[in-house]
């Protein structure tokens, strides 16, 4: 099962490497990881996408909590939540293909953020499956480069992750 974990971490040098080290050391899987400071600059917020059965996820959560710099951990997938990922895709866009690419972009609510004589750079925001669907729709043969930010998530409603 795929899980989205949100972690509040002390914004200190070396803290992130402990999180990553833990996953490597205990053979836990990380699909994506995002990290940046929050409105409170002493804290970083991480979103981790991982997969595993309930036992494994429980162990991941417990071991994250065991790290001294981890302030809080929640599993967003336990409740309703919003997840978004940003993707930049550079595609080959010869004159005769441009209309078609634009149309696909519109369908996925992507934006063309850079244009050259024979390329487009498309920016897309959404849940991971939407981004993957876009790649499929455009066709890998047309794609020159893909950059994904990894997933960020937040719970729906009034539920808040804070200290």
């Amino acid at each position, binding site marked *: 099962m795929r899980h989205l974990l949100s972690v509040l971490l002390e914004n200190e*040098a*070396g803290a992130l*490497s402990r999180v990553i*080290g833990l996953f490597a*050391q205990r053979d836990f899987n990380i699909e994506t990881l995002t990290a940046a400071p929050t409105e409170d600059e002493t804290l970083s917020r991480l979103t981790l996408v991982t997969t595993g059965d309930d*036992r494994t996820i429980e*162990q991941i959560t417990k*071991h994250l909590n065991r790290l*001294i710099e981890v*302030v809080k951990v929640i599993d967003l997938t336990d409740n309703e939540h919003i997840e978004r990922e940003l993707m930049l895709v550079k595609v080959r866009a010869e004159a005769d293909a441009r209309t078609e690419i634009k149309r696909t972009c519109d369908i996925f609510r992507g934006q063309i953020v850079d244009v050259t004589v024979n390329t487009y750079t498309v920016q897309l925001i959404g849940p991971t499956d939407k981004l993957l669907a876009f790649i499929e729709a455009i066709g890998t043969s047309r794609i020159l480069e893909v950059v994904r930010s990894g997933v960020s998530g937040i719970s729906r409603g009034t539920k808040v992750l804070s200290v």
Partner: protein
Amino acid sequence: MTEMLSGGEMLIRALHEEGVEYIFGYPGGAALHIYDAIFKQQAIEHILVRHEQAATHMADGYARSTGRPGIVLVTSGPGATNAITGIATAYMDSIPMVVISGQVPHDVIGTDAFQETDMIGVSRPVVKHSYLVEEAARIPHIVKEAIYIATSGRPGPVVIDIPKDTTDPNELFEYDLPDSIELRSYKPAIKGHVGQIRKAVRALLESKRPVIYVGGGVVQGNASSELCSLAHKLNYPVTNTLMGLGTFPGTDSQFLGMLGMHGTYEANNAMHHADLILAVGARFDDRVTNNPSKFCPDATIVHIDVDPASISKVIAADIPIVGQCKAVLAQMLKNLDEELNGREIDSEPIDAWWEQIDSWRESFGLDHGLHKAESGSGKLLPQQVIQVIYRATEGKAYVTSDVGQHQMFAAQYYRFDQPRQWINSGGLGTMGFGLPSAMGVQFAHPHSTVVCITGEGSFMMNMQELSTCSQYSLPIKIVNLNNQALGMVKQWQDMQYGGRHSHSTYADSLPDFVDLINSFGHVGFRAETLPELEEAVELAFSDKHRSDLVFIDALIDPDEHIYPMFVRGGAVNEMVLNKYD
């Protein structure tokens, strides 16, 4: 008035104010400012070791025998990396320790400077936490926080890596040690959940075939007296892990002995047939569970541990309780009284269970494997050596050990009645641990008898510390169960590799241990027969040698195996009981 001190001075001052008596260390360039600060004071005694690994094991032995954190000081680069094995050893057994490593100055960090190693990176997987000192003024705070983290919750080693510029004697700072430490991200559990405690007590009372399975968490958590009260009140059988020995008296009739790979027949059978297991401060290590899928098929598992990550890691707990062993057991005792409300515990089912256990005990109990001695091969047996030591020390010595057959013989045959009496590397299984840890114990308890039961292979991994023992006049008694081989390896090769002894023997190249010991100014005896051993032991523990380090080279039967031993991949009660059956 605040005092102005250098970083090096603040470090030593803070350690002293936190109650530190000893630093075990070894100097080098990056640590020299700190060494100069040590030179200028008397409050803390620095012990000069001969190898940094040994310093960590000394601090570890000090910590295991007192419950107070062991402190280590090493230089950068090779000093730091030499300390890693000892840090990992402490980490696996949850031992409170603070390791201070010198580091190259900030302005050259990252340039592959002379003796630069990324100590924070190298130690990360084997520490509870670590600090790279950025500002000298923070040193007292970091020391206090490091000790707090090392000793609270599930204890463990903490590294403080100190770049040389932050200990510069010419740069002075206001010394400010905080009164207490408050961390928003670290709040170790204390009491257990009341509802879970009630459930656990009811399950205990309903059980017909209970076993209390106790690990090192009860040693570290000083919970032995609560444990004994609970076990005695219920009259339930108790087994200890290798790390838990001494938490329940080895001489108590309710004690089943150690469980696990080399556990007793009765302990492993009781575990397998139990309908309830109360696990206290134990972590279901693979040397205890054997094949987890066959582990204790009928048992309800109640698991008490201060570390939530230990619970349901290997074996799923039916009633998990997170909290300090001491607090949780006290809660259970209180709840038990309330639950019974003056009523007696129904002893009938327990009587039947005890009958069953006694019959296991009588059929294949510990001495079953000793029949070879009775048949009189004439050779000295390791089991006999431990029994002789046990009698000579009246069961009261601190006993440290190394890793191998000798360790398991010591665990089986010395009956430990007190927690902290038995000191060995259980989790990492570090050969070379025995002598230096005994030294740490002897520093902590200068008037107590400290015995190191070792094997010649393990002993040779840290024997340079015999020189340190001379320097500080440590009267340790070392008993070398000399089978002229890496006995444990050889046994596995006998049992699983058709007797092919690949690189496990070296009989022709061993030193004359008595000469070796003498050359360091210590006393050595050799024993090849039981009478010779008895004589040597009597002398070693006599007043004559009270203040000497005495080494007994006991030449034991090289073919002896340690039994019982788990059948690989089996249930806990599937054991090989001796060489012949």
